[in-house]
């Protein structure tokens, strides 16, 4: 039997693509978090000697932001990230369309006790995240990096998180991210073919702990800035 389908055109291949792009986005999330934790460093920690004796969080955060937009390797990684995000979304849409076609008539009675709600609703969680990312990029990335209308990113971030509904939007986005990650990390490893039982048990545990830690650390930033 001739099988002419490309690497990413079969049901397994499409899920591989989701896994690879998803894991790359997670790698970015970690870097993004580490950078943004600068925002909540208490004043008592300054001056920080290894950062050139920087005297306050304002200067430190703006220096970090300037480094990100001016250091060319970061720009290359950023373009890979944009590509990964677009591929992740397009692949998810193609998979969803295929899945809808595969389903038969709807059941009159459904029993969802055999799976978690977030594993069944990755598309819904992903859509919430997609809307959140567009808002997030329009508020910061667009104004600071693309249009150049804002030069003091620290002040922009601070002003943004003084608006309560903006904080609320961020918290909703972060909760969606948390559940998307819990299932996504485990599912991605399974899709890539990691099958030893002990390894998958550890990955499942790591996925839960990692997602919760990421969500908590991301969630406290807007709240602390709102209360600052």
């Amino acid at each position: 039997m001739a099988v002419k389908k490309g690497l990413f055109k079969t049901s397994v291949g499409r899920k591989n693509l989701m896994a690879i792009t998803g894991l790359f986005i997670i790698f970015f999330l970690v870097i993004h978090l580490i950078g943004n934790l600068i925002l909540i460093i208490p004043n008592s920690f300054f001056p920080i000697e290894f950062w050139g004796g920087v005297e306050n969080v304002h200067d430190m955060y703006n220096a970090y932001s300037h480094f990100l937009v001016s250091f060319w390797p970061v720009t290359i990684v950023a373009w890979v990230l944009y590509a990964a995000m677009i591929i992740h979304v397009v692949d998810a849409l193609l998979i969803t369309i295929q899945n809808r076609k595969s389903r038969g008539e709807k059941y009159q009675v459904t029993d969802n006790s055999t799976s978690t709600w977030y594993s069944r609703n990755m598309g819904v969680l992903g859509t919430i995240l997609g809307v959140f990312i567009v808002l997030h990029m329009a508020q910061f990335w667009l104004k600071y990096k693309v249009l150049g209308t804002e030069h003091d990113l620290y002040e922009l971030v601070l002003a943004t998180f003084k608006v309560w509904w903006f904080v609320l939007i961020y918290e909703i986005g972060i909760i969606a991210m948390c559940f998307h990650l819990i299932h996504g990390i485990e599912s991605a490893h399974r899709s890539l073919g990691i099958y030893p039982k002990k390894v998958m048990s550890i990955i499942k545990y790591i996925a839960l702990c990692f997602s919760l830690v990421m969500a908590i650390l991301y969630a406290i930033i807007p709240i602390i800035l709102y209360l600052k």
Partner: protein
Amino acid sequence: MKLTLKIWRQESAKTKGKLVTYKLSDLSSDTSFLEMLDVLNEELASKGEPAVEFDHDCREGICGQCSLVINGKAHGPEEHYTTCQTHLRSFSDGDTITIEPFRANSFPVIRDLKVDRGSMDRIIQAGGYISSFTGMAPEANTIPIHHDIAESAFDSAACIGCGACIATCKNSSAALFVSAKIGHLAKLPQGQIERTERALWMINAHDEEGFGNCSNTGACAMVCPQEVQLLDIARMNFEYNRAKCIS
């Protein structure tokens, strides 16, 4: 026991179906679910009405012929059971039970609760076999196989091909079924000859038959009568990636 049954009645794949309500009384809690349907069909026959069509064969939980989605769960309320092994003691007196066929686009309804699961046979035909000498079966211990590997292969081989995994999957994916066969043969020395091609052929056949993509929700493994594990799907993905790399 008294039970109210809401049963999916549909003349063929081309006609629309609907739930029809029937009432049964004087049932023993030791009656099996399929025997209950037999009782109903006898009542319908005595009234001159068409019987409710449903799949069944061995009624011992090993052939994979029985199907049915009972109150939204494939094979009924018990975990890792087949419909034929489900008894009325799993329900309460006065319950209303909704019975529907296994639903997936690749499982067209033949009539009522009976669906065509030929798509699964075609996936097996695509690669679920091994090359072997013809003649008498060889002596079982000619090829030494480690006990753990034999046990693991047997766990995958236990799949009875009932299709409950597909009926349960929100995407109508047959990943668990395909992975059980790929995993079973990939673990054993007899399966090595077609190992690479098998993964490609069977996954290709899976997609050609119109089954959906696996979302790893794990619902399939929760209803599997033979407790085929979700790890088999990961093993299948490994086999596919391996085959793509070396073929």
